[in-house]
């Protein structure tokens, strides 16, 4: 018994010591300025990825100074954010604000985890396409801050500065210059990359979903003659055809071939510029050439800040978004941390002095936002797989039609 007594006393003492060690947050003295609210004692949790964390820290510092509230930045992998946000918010453990891409909007609305954002006067400072991208059924759900799109990147030593008007022009120019491969396009290996091909697909007039006045509907639009024409073109340029488009080219191979000067053209986004110019290739960014006669409209992706529907501090979260993130300084900091096309109009004109960004801006002006409807998430698997099969030599029309039928059955 005495042994147990010593034991229990020791345990109790150590236990209490350690349990008492949980830290209490230090009381912050509220600083009240004319306009700022007093948010002392309020903590906002914001999810971000490692690229944007330093940028948001600057806006967060201003917020903390002026209102006395605290911003807790949680760093996550960008790919994990959508799933984690959808699963955690309904349990009440989610963040108040998170960064995200606009094509998640449909599935986030379906999960009921985002609430609408009211931008009041600052709405006019943003590019209309960025606001449209985050609007679903008439409500705006996020504060946009950047756009991204892909464009045609060409090796100026081989083919000069001029933008080729069509696919055939591009191939001809590259052959005349004697490039080993006229063009390399990332097909994601065996997985397929319909995202990169979308510019060419729309140049045949085959959008993924039919649009009406309100935006995208859930009717598959890539069937019919236009879709078959695109499929035939893809097969003709695939491995059994000219071999320009091949499933042996994945992301890294694509960049490697262009950077070493073997390829004259490639289709990539601003995130790849560093890899493409790593060996000193001089580049020019131009809009994607048309392959089917109509304008090539690549996907435009918009990034922004969502607000959780279960946030305990919804007013403060909105305040942070509209007064501290929707400002020139914060948007500039975000641009410098992760250079994509800014959604803030003034900033966009300012950074267009950089020819590379100007090239992407030009490409984005032809572009269309990726559909943010929930059905979009179900489309990729079948779409990518069908493209891979056609590139490898399967019957283009048959494979494409089967894919359309499967998609319609899936979405139906």
């Amino acid at each position: 018994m005495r042994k147990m007594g010593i034991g229990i006393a020791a345990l109790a003492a150590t236990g209490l010591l350690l349990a008492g060690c949980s830290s209490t947050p230090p009381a912050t003295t509220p600083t009240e300025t004319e306009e700022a609210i007093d948010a002392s004692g309020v903590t906002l949790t914001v999810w971000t990825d490692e690229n944007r964390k330093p940028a948001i820290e600057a806006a967060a510092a201003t917020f903390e100074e002026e209102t006395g509230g605290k911003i807790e930045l949680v760093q996550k992998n960008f790919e994990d954010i959508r799933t984690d946000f959808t699963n955690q918010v309904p349990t009440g453990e989610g963040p108040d604000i998170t960064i995200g891409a606009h094509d998640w909007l449909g599935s986030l609305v379906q999960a009921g985890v985002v609430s609408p954002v009211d931008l009041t006067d600052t709405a006019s400072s943003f590019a209309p396409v960025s606001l449209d991208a985050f609007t679903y059924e008439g409500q705006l759900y996020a504060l946009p801050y950047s756009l991204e799109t892909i464009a045609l990147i060409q090796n100026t030593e081989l083919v000069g500065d001029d933008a080729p008007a069509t696919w055939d022009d591009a191939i001809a120019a590259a052959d005349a210059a004697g490039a080993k491969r006229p063009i390399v396009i990332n097909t994601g290996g065996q997985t397929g990359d319909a995202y990169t091909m979308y510019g060419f697909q729309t140049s045949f007039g085959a959008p993924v979903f039919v649009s009406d006045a309100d935006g995208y509907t859930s009717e598959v639009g890539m069937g019919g003659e236009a879709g078959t024409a695109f499929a035939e073109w893809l097969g003709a340029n695939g491995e059994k055809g000219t071999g320009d488009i091949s499933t042996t080219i994945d992301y890294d191979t694509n960049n490697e071939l262009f950077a070493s000067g073997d390829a004259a053209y490639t289709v990539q986004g601003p995130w790849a510029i560093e890899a493409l110019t790593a060996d000193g290739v001089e580049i020019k960014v131009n809009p994607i050439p048309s392959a089917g006669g109509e304008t090539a409209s690549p996907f435009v992706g918009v990034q922004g800040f969502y607000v959780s529907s279960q946030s305990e501090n919804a007013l403060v979260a909105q305040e942070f978004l509209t007064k501290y993130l929707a400002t020139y300084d914060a948007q500039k900091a975000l641009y410098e941390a992760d250079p994509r096309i800014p959604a803030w109009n003034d900033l966009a004109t300012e950074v267009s002095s950089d020819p590379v960004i100007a090239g992407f801006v030009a490409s984005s002006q032809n572009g269309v936002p990726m559909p943010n409807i929930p059905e979009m998430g179900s489309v990729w698997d079948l779409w990518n797989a069908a493209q891979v099969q056609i590139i490898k030599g399967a019957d283009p029309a048959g494979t494409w039609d089967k894919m359309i039928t499967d998609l319609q059955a899936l979405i139906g």
Partner: protein
Amino acid sequence: MSVPQDTATAQAAPPSPTPPTSGSGEPHGRRWNGVGWGFLVKLVLMAIVNAFGLMGIFAAAQAQSWIIFGAAVLLLAAADIVYFTKRALPLKYLLPGLGFLLVFQVFIFGYTAYIAFTNYGAGHVGSQEQAVQAALSQGERRVEGSPTFPLAVVEQGGTLGFAIVEDGEIKAGSAEAPLSVVGTTTAAGAPAEVPGWTIVPRNDIISDQDLQKEVIALRVPVSDDPNAGSIRTNDGSSGSIYRSTLEWDAASQTITDTATGTVYRATDSGNFASDDGTMLPTGWTVHVGFDNFVRLFTDPAMISPLATVTLWTFAWAILSVLVPFAMGLIFAIIFNDERIKGRKILRTLFILPYAFPAFMSALLFRGMFNAEFGVINEFFFGGMNIDWLGDPWLARFAVLFVNVWLTYPYYFLVCTGAIQALPSDALEAASIDGAGRVRQLRSIILPLVLVATAPLLISSFAFSFNNFTIIYMFNNGGPAIPGAPYALGSTDILISAIWDISGVSGGKADYGLASALSILVFIVVGLISALAFRQTKKLEEYQ
């Protein structure tokens, strides 16, 4: 280094606790009664364990997660009892392992089984209350052309309301009383004084979370006409006119669209559906019983790809065990022979693949098997464009090749040890009797080696059955099966199919279906392992 033949079976039971006795019946340790150094060390360790345990219990109680609270209390009590009582010696060794087993296996299995009986997935992630809240907020539309009014939150006799400034007029109202003019102002911005109402300072709202929720939920009608809309604020300092078209009736569990008259009823499958089939986007999680399990076997689009995946999984697991084992055994027998020159160097070279991490090797091999740029096609096939990654059977062969390359050194090591422990007199006797090499291998070497390695083979089978890493990193499940949902491919095994179905990698999430498939996989692997372990008992007769 020789491995004793009963190593594997001996590992199952804990080592004998009593030290070898010298002299009289009871070991001297049993007579020790005092507080020695050993006891002090145990006390310190248990104090640390208790400290962490208590910290966890307090934190769980504060966060009100009662399951974690209960589990922590039970585990801590069990640890204290087991380690301070004189008896329960086997449990003293087993308790940490049992604890981890309970937390990381039993609980996970239980939770997965629970999810398998629900429809948790895309569009069904919250509760019905949250779905209603989402539907109502999605059904609200800002009235076209509504300006943004400077707004102040006011209260009168305990009722909250809004006061806005429109064209120099101050209007105030509450949820029951529509906006009415109460004064005029020339200042811009939110009204500083509202006659008849007291302004609630914005800072008060910010610091009170319940008040915040009330303010956000408050809707003040613009006029007596319900179609004119109501004022709503998102940030407490400005408001606009919104019109809500959806109404929730808790008694009849319906949401009615007042604009079109459509009635959405709450269904058993966790959606609000109207009579003609249109559904509101947000649903909630419901129990669906065995639906997920039934769907795995009856959904026409999924049966064929899943059957292919299952067959390939079994083939993959069996081949991933047999082929490396055979290779390892043969190499071990070869290198056991002293006539080979440079044995040590060759042995080291052959064991080298064991040192490479599977993750990295799979990626490197993917690059090497590339049809156009890959090293393998260039060096060994003279530049032919063999489509290793694109053709279903070639991809299967390639991924199996990679796995065998990574695994055989392990069996080589184990078999080397097992063979060196074989009794040489039995082999000599066999060769005197006239048994050839093959007969010796079949009747003497193989059974004796199997006694030592059979449990390893069984656990390897279970591991290979669920070897997600190689399959995913090599080709992400391989060339897609045409027309298969979830992009199931020719080299997909059940575990990577579960990954695709769950939608974690970015597709439509269906956690219920993925969990059901996980439970089935667990049952299959568990049954096979259990049966196989029983079979290995027969091998012990050879001892």
